Structure formats: structure tokens, C-alpha cells
């Protein structure tokens, strides 16, 4: 298993390397530039030129790339142009927020998606199944940000049930431990902070969960249907095993293989969705950082974030692979 893990990790290296070149080249190709961004309203051509000199942006592109690579390898992604803070530091502040949101969303999606998919499969072709299929398709067709608005509109504006945005009430003075608001409250015993953080988490995570939920339902359904028709399920039945054992040990376990893959695939979507959801709910995570960075052409932050997203994506895929290897012995040998 260790070898498997290490190999998978090594496989990601070339991808990340090429990606770093692409990201770098991409940023150099963007019109405008860090100097323009830094100088804001006061960017006159002269100032921009002077600033470029200060920043070394008039050096040859290759020199710039290797400087960038060198810094990146030491974990230095430079400082944000917007805030002036080191990008890594910004990320370390914002990452827990995004992590919290994504994990909550994925948790919801899995928690409700797998049972619903399973139920739909068991009632294949009947009303319940068709209803599930249509619902999930609608779920996919609704733009995340619009769903966010809708939820906000209904639950905060109309019903005043839940807080509209942010991660916790400003007046709650919670101690930061991990940066994951719901967890911190539990760790420090500030339960009101946890409660408050949970309330804030509900709407964004529901909005973000919509697509992965729909996909998980569909995959689970399809996969359960596939497995139900497999010979080994018939074998299990022929052994006279109880229905529960057949379903749990034979059907579900096999059916979850593709589902686990899907969960990994969904992280990409989740990251995309997070950008939109965070904007809607002023969540203040990586998505927010990214959105600002794009609007204001915050190059160092953009570089850092895109590479970070790729790394996270790689890691999640790795986790999925490992979990795959745990439930599917066939993968291990390779």
C-alpha cells in the first residue's frame, strides 16, 4: 500500500511541473500586469514601468520562470498584490474555510446521495425511481450560484431563519484553533460559536452539495443496478444468504467502487462550485481569494491558488485511489 501511494504521488510530479509552466506562461500572457494592479487608480505608464523594473518583470521570461520555480519549491508563492500578505499565509487562513464548506457539502451529498441512489435502484422503473432521476437532473441543471441566491432569498430574506452570509456572527468572539469554525467551538468549549457556525454553514453547503449530490445519486443508482445483475449476486442468493447480507456485503460493497471514484471526480466540480458559492455567501475561503485575484489581477495569488487547487485535486485523487485499493483488492496488485 505504501509503494502504491508513493508511486501515485510520484506520478503527479510531472503533471504539476508542466502545470507550473502553463500557469506561469498563462499569467505572463494576461493583459495588464502586476504593476498595473499594484498601482491601482494611480497607475500611470511611467509608474508602471518603474514598478516593473522594481519587480524584475523586465527580465527575460525564462529567468523569471526559474526565479518563480525556485521560490515556489521553497513554498514561497510571493505576496498578494491586494493585501500584501504572503500568499501561503492567505491560503492558510482561507483554506480551512473552503475545506469546511467542501467537506460539509460532500458530506451532505454522500449522506443523502448514496441512500437515495440505492433506493432509486431498488425501485427501478417505478415512480420513486423516476422522480429521483428527474430531481437529480434538475439539480444538475440549476446553476450553483442561482441556487445559492434562491436559498438565501427564501431562508434569510423571506423566512429569516438562517444567516445570509459569512462564517459566523461578527460579535461572536470565537477562538481560532484550526480555522474550521464548527470544529473550533467544540475544541474550545465555545458551543455557542459552534452552533452559530453550523447555522452559517447550512445554506452554502446545501447549495454546493446540489451537483455532487445529484451525480452521486445517479452513479449509485446505475452502479447498484449493474451489480444487482452480476453473477456473484446470484451466487450469493444461491447460497441462501439473508437479504441483508446479500445487499450489504455483495451488492453495496461492489456498487460503492464507482461511487468512490465519482466522489474524487466531484472534488474538481466542488472547487469550481466553491468559487461561485463562496461569492454568493461571502464565505471568505479560497474561492473568494481566487475571485478577487482574478478581478484585480493579483498574479502571485493566482499562481499560488491554481497550483494549490491542482495539488489538492491530485491529493484527493490519491485518497480516492487509496480508498479504492482498500475496497477493491484487484487494484492493489498493480
Amino acid at each position, binding site marked *: 500500500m505504501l509503494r502504491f501511494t508513493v508511486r501515485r504521488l510520484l506520478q503527479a510530479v510531472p503533471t504539476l511541473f508542466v502545470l507550473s509552466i502553463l500557469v506561469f506562461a498563462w499569467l505572463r500572457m494576461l*493583459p*495588464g*500586469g*502586476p504593476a*498595473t*494592479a*499594484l498601482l*491601482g*487608480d*494611480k497607475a*500611470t*505608464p511611467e*509608474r508602471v514601468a*518603474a*514598478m516593473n*523594473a*522594481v*519587480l524584475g*518583470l523586465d527580465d527575460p521570461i525564462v529567468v523569471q520562470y526559474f526565479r*518563480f520555480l525556485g*521560490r515556489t519549491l521553497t513554498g*514561497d*508563492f*510571493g*505576496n*498578494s498584490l*491586494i*493585501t*500584501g500578505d*504572503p500568499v501561503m*499565509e*492567505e491560503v492558510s*487562513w*482561507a483554506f*480551512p*474555510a473552503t475545506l469546511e464548506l467542501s467537506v460539509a457539502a460532500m458530506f451532505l451529498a454522500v449522506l443523502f446521495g448514496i441512500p437515495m441512489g440505492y433506493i432509486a435502484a431498488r425501485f427501478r422503473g417505478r415512480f420513486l425511481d423516476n422522480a429521483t432521476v428527474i430531481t437529480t437532473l434538475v439539480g444538475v441543471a440549476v446553476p450553483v450560484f442561482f441556487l445559492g441566491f434562491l436559498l438565501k432569498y427564501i431562508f*434569510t*430574506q423571506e423566512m429569516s431563519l438562517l*444567516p*445570509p*452570509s*459569512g*462564517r459566523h456572527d*461578527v*460579535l*461572536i468572539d470565537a477562538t*481560532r484553533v484550526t*480555522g474550521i469554525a464548527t470544529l473550533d467551538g467544540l475544541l474550545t468549549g465555545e458551543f*455557542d460559536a459552534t452552533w452559530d457556525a453550523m447555522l452559517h454553514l447550512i445554506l452554502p453547503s446545501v447549495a454546493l452539495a446540489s451537483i455532487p449530490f445529484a451525480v452521486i445519486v445517479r452513479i449509485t443508482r446505475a452502479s447498484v443496478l449493474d451489480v444487482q445483475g452480476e453473477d456473484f449476486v446470484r451466487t450469493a442468493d444461491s447460497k441462501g444468504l439473508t437479504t441483508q447480507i446479500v445487499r450489504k456485503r455483495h451488492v453495496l460493497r461492489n456498487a460503492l467502487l464507482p461511487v468512490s471514484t465519482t466522489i474524487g471526480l466531484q472534488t474538481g466540480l466542488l472547487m469550481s462550485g466553491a468559487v461561485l458559492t463562496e*461569492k454568493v*455567501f*461571502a464565505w*471568505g475561503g479560497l474561492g*473568494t481569494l481566487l475571485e*478577487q485575484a482574478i*478581478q*484585480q*489581477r493579483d*498574479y*502571485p495569488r493566482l499562481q499560488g491558488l491554481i497550483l494549490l487547487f491542482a495539488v489538492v485535486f491530485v491529493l484527493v485523487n490519491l485518497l480516492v485511489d487509496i480508498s479504492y485499493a482498500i475496497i477493491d483488492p484487484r487494484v492493489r496488485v498493480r
Partner: protein
Amino acid sequence: SERGEDAGAANTLVFGAAGAPKNFDPVFNDDGESFRPIRQMYETLVAYKPGTAELQPGLATEWTPSDDGKTWTFELREGVKFHDGTDFNAEAVCFNFDRWYNMPSAAAQSQMIYYGDVFEGFAKNKGDASGDPVYKSCEAKDEHTAVLNLNEAKGAFPDAFGLTSLSMSSPKALKEHNADEVTQSGESFSYPAYANEHPTGTGPFKFESYDKSANTITLTRNEDYWGDKAKLEKLVFRVIPDENARKQDMISGQIDGYDLPNPADYQALRDSGAQVMVRPTFNILYLGINQKNTPELKDERVRKAIEYAINKEQLAKNQLPEGASARYQFVPEETDGYTDEVEKHEYDVDKAKQLLKEAGAEDLTLEFYVPTEVSRPYMPDPVDIAGAVSDNLDAVGIDVKMRQRPWNGGFKDDIQKHGKHDIHLLGWTGDYGDAGNFVGTFFGREKAEFGFNEPKIFKALADADAKVDDEEQKKAYEDAAVKISEYVPAVPLTSSPPAIVVGGDVQGLVPSPLTDERFVSVSKGQS
């Protein structure tokens, strides 16, 4: 939440900010989001009277220029202490001026935008500074008298002494926290501890913390403030980048105020009981004209036709916030240099068509550069405004091709550096109450943005700037304004007052044309 309530909702004010501040060292900043907290912690020698651009005593009780305008003498307020307990005195003032002038690195210098604008250069001994510095020296005549020597007179003074960037910092804190160590790292800059964690001024609020995970900046009341103490115990700025989120937080009572509400939301905000305070206008939106690329635009008649074609009143009503008005000159009404003598080209489609005909420019095609991904008080939604302007121009037969460029992603380069456009949308918010800050900036010399060389105008503006006497200067700027209105180097469109919104229970906030609101007088509670 209970805890929030007994934390004394009455004594804490939470203000929504649109973005995170860059840092808290006044001199390294130039944007409103950074200035807002800075203004509560720092003070300048000269201050602006709340709600106006007029001057009033700040840390200096008096300021007097020499006759040639090259020496300024400041009488300083007594009994003022910095937040670290050190005294504010003439030495501190000179320490600040010297610090700015002698800023050691190119990196640090590049961050001092306003200082650079006003003082035009740095000490030659350090780095490879460029420009001819206006600053010469500073002497502490006595404990409470500071004398500033300049190399040349500047019309911007004394107003410019009120710029937030030129706020007074504690020399002790500056030294202790290596305030000058701005370093370049990659494509950006790192700021020293002073700027990040130890801003130390004389203002009514003291820095307490900046929680980057929660995105909140917390200030507390300065109990040793020299003047009337702040009514609020705590002032919290919470960064909420999303416009809609700010609004909803405001309505649901999560925050007590935020800046620059979307004009579309004024009504909803008011309905929720909030106070939308419209500031006096101090900005100008204009339709720039670049004479370089299209010969027809060199013709005054064509430029005038463009102005005649635009229905500024309707534009102000349809697309701009309440209180916006049509403009026929660049200097704001409240500022010296504004005059009724200017040539007014009011909306007149027939006249526009006729002028175009006369100039033989009936099939004029213009590239109209419009910024995107930006919202400024003078143009909340540039694209919609540009749309309305295009509709107007279309109506007189000008074929407008709209080119949209992201504000930071090419627009400014294309306009100000490459001059790729024929016409463009841009504007300006005044930094202080000086006409030169408006017109001088635009038309003082040949620029890629406008692509003309008209010595008549350049000279008129240079003369006006050089006048030391207030009355003379006023006349000179009025004269320049008339010349500009006749030449039409660009079309002034509208001025839009930015608004600031606070909860119904917030009192004492005075909206400022310079967005220079001080929260010292603000209180919260049932009225």
C-alpha cells in the same frame, strides 16, 4: 446570539468593508479600503472640516506659507500623544517628513503613491530615485513649531497636507517595528511589522487586531485621545467582498454600515430602516476623446457634436445614483475654479447632427473603450453607462464600436499607455479641494489618453498651479476652465455622489465628499 448582545452592541460598531486593507501604514496606501481604518487611528497636520473639502486645524493648529510658497510653518497642537504613549511634537513631525523623503528602497518608494504625487521625488542619496523632489528639509523650531522647507511652491498645498497618506506616525513605533523595510518578494511586496501589526498614530481609535481568518479588523477606543473621546468602545471592520452579501448583512443587522451601496439598493436599504447617506459630490465622469487615431476628432466641431449628442440628464437619472447630476465642466461646484462662464453644450440632437455635417464627419466610426470588472463612485456600472452613451451617439449617426477591457486587465494600459481608443469612459475622484487635482491631472500636458497638444491649455493650467495667492489661483483656474470648455478635449458627463449606509440607530456620521469619514463622533443606540 447572547454573547454578542452583552458585548455591548451599543458600544461596538461593525462596518462592512468591500475589501481587505493592504496594510496600516498610511504612507504606503492609496486605496479607500485601507484608508478607512487608517483614518480612525491616524491624524494629519491639516484636517478637512467634516462633510466638506474645506480645511480645518488638525494636529497643526495653524499653518502659514512664506511669500514664495517655499516654506511652511506649522504650529502644533499641544498635549497630543501617540498610542504608544510618546509625545507628538515638532520632532515627530520632522521625523515623519524625513522618513518619507529618505525612504531607503525602491520597493518602499514605489508604494508611496500619494507622497510621490505631492512631493515628486526622493532623496538622491538612496536608491536610484528619480524626479526633482519638492521636499528640502524640516526643522523643529521648538517643541511645537515645525518648519517645512520646499524646493518649489506648489498649488496643491496646503490642502495636500490633509492627505491621509501623510498622516503622522509615532517615531518610536516606526523605529521599533522597522517601518521602512518594505521588501520585494516575487511580483509583490512584503510590509514590515509596523504596517501590519503595529500602526501607531494619534487618532481616537487604537489598533487592536486584524483577524485574517475571520477577516475582521478591530479597533478600540483611545482613552487618552486629546480631543472629544470616541463614543464607541469598539470599531470593527469586517471584510465582505460581495456586494449583495453586504447588503443582506446590513438588512439582517449583521453589520451597522457599509460604504458605497449599490444605487439599486438604496430603496431596499431605506425600507429596512437603514440610513443611506448621500455624500456631497466630489468626482467627475467623463467621456475621454483621443485625437490621435481618428482625424475627424481633431475637429473641434466633431468633439462638440459628441457632447451635444449626449443626454447627460437622462443618463444621470437612468444609470446613476440619486443625487447625480449632469456636468459641463471638470471642476466640482464646491471647489475654487468652478465657473458659470464655461461654454455649455447641452443635449441637442439636431445641433450635433448639424455640426457633424459641417465637419464632414457623417459616417464617423469610433472605437469606444469601456472598462469592465470595476465599479467606481462616478461609474457604478461602466458598461450600462457606456451603453446609454452609445445609444445617444448612435442616434446622431455615429457608429460606435464598444471595446470592453478589464480595468486591471488591459483597460488602463490601452488607454493611458497605448492610446488605442477613440473615445473612452473614465473619471476621477478628488483627493483634496484643489482644482488642479482635477483639470491639471487631465489636461496639464500631452498624454496618450487624450492625444492632443494644445499649448494654450497646458500653459493656462501651469500658470494657475504656480499661483500662491488663493484669489489669483481661483481666477486662473476659472479662466482655464473656460478655455477647456471651448476646446472640448473630453466631455464631462456627470458627477455621482457616493453614498454610505448605516443602521437606523447610528448617529453622528458625517458623510464626506472626500470619503473622509471619521467615526470619532459616531454613536450607536436607540435614538
